[in-house]
């Protein structure tokens, strides 16, 4: 609690000084770091080092509900795109049935989850996206993914014609920042939240014409 007290004194001094010298207001960024640093503790797998922001998260936080300057967002996207690793065996699609299980599963990475291993993580998809017609308990934070492949003209995901959509989708799941610097979606591949096999199952859910996403 002393931290906030000190900040208030410093802030008051800064405001007073501001009147005399037109210097900028209180340094909220420094106060914020101090406050975050003193307010949390480790719990299970959720350690305090999780509070450390990379440059992208810092820029997106700073922008609040807006977007960072163009130069910043393009740098973030460029860097994200470079991080993406395509599947080692060149195969992009797994089993959509497994993908649907992952989409339903909202678990993972909280202090009550026992490990941070990909096998203990769900895809959390339905928390934010509509995926199939049958499941009505879906969130709306992200866009609907119903008919994802169908709407994009994917008839044969193995075909050369489908390649750009297939690679785009893999990239989006791998590192969502590649196309949107401040995307609200987790970076599933880049941060090792899901492994290659799990990502392939989600790819199949979205792109396989037989999957309930596209088949009805």
């Amino acid at each position, binding site marked *: 609690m002393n*931290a*906030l007290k000190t900040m208030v004194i410093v802030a008051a001094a800064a405001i007073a000084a501001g009147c005399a010298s037109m210097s900028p207001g209180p340094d909220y960024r420094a106060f914020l770091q101090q406050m975050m640093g003193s307010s949390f503790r480790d719990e299970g797998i959720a350690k305090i080092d999780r509070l450390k922001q990379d440059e992208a998260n810092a820029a997106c936080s700073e922008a609040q509900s807006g977007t960072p300057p163009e130069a910043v967002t393009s740098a973030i996207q460029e860097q994200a795109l470079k991080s993406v690793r395509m599947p080692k065996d060149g195969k992009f699609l797994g089993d959509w049935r497994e993908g649907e299980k992952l989409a339903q599963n909202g678990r993972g990475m909280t202090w009550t989850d026992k490990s941070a291993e990909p096998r203990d993580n769900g895809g959390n998809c339905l928390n934010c996206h509509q995926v199939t017609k049958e499941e009505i308990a879906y969130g709306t934070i992200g866009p609907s993914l119903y008919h994802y492949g169908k709407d994009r003209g994917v008839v044969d995901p193995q075909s050369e014609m489908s390649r750009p959509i297939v690679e785009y989708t893999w990239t989006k799941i791998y590192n969502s920042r590649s196309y949107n610097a401040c995307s609200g979606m987790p970076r599933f591949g880049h941060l090792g939240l899901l492994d290659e096999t799990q990502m392939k199952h989600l790819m199949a859910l979205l792109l396989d014409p037989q999957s309930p996403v596209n088949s009805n």
Partner: protein
Amino acid sequence: MRTLWTLIAVATVAVSTAGLAQQKSASDAIAEYRAMLADGNPADLFEAKGEELWKQKRGPKNVSLEQCNLGKGAGVVKGAFVELPRWFADTGRVQDLESRLLTCMETLQGFDSKVIINTPFGKGEQAKIESLVAWISAESKGMHFNLPQAHTAEKTAYELGKRAFYYRAGPYDFSCASCHGQEGKRIRLQDLPDLTKNPGDGVGFAAWPAYRVSSGELWGMQRRLNDCFRQQRFPYPGYTSDVTVALGVYMGVNAKGAESIAPALKR
């Protein structure tokens, strides 16, 4: 031919109504469930216990909380809740209801606030605080939020609360704003209040503390925030830590004018 077109038109209407009916029945069922629950809020039991605890002589000093100053003078409970968190001269801190109760439990009753801070939710003195917040908030039921922002510390807390609200970090890159930064969104079927502005009467900040039917417990705002941070995949926020109080100021000031229905009833 005319008949065929009529048939097609009827069929189209039928299909779209079927779709609507499915959507409607889901939200209707939830609304019905909520209405059913609202008929009797078990928070009443916590309120009664809280009032008793306020008046009961307890702690190492065997004193009641009746002289506790929640911001409107010693012993004034009515209307105190809708003006919290606020700055307190005696501690030199901005405090929410729970951190203020800790101060009173320490200074008046002789409890060690550090021990209470480290007690898990729902256990020991923490369970007692949940009853106290149920009663204290109920004493302001129907009143409108009006947090003071006159003191520099209150303004600073608001600014820091806003920045904490947008602070993205952790393995999912989430912030509070990921879920509560836009209007009309939901997670699964759960509606999400937009806490960057005033979501309205009895919504968001104006709906806690609340009785949680799913867990059969009374949750104060501290416990609610704790669970938000868990779902954000953040580390564990300290009970009454600076960040939780600052977020309370941010949400509470944004909710200015909203009617409090606390203690509310939640799924």
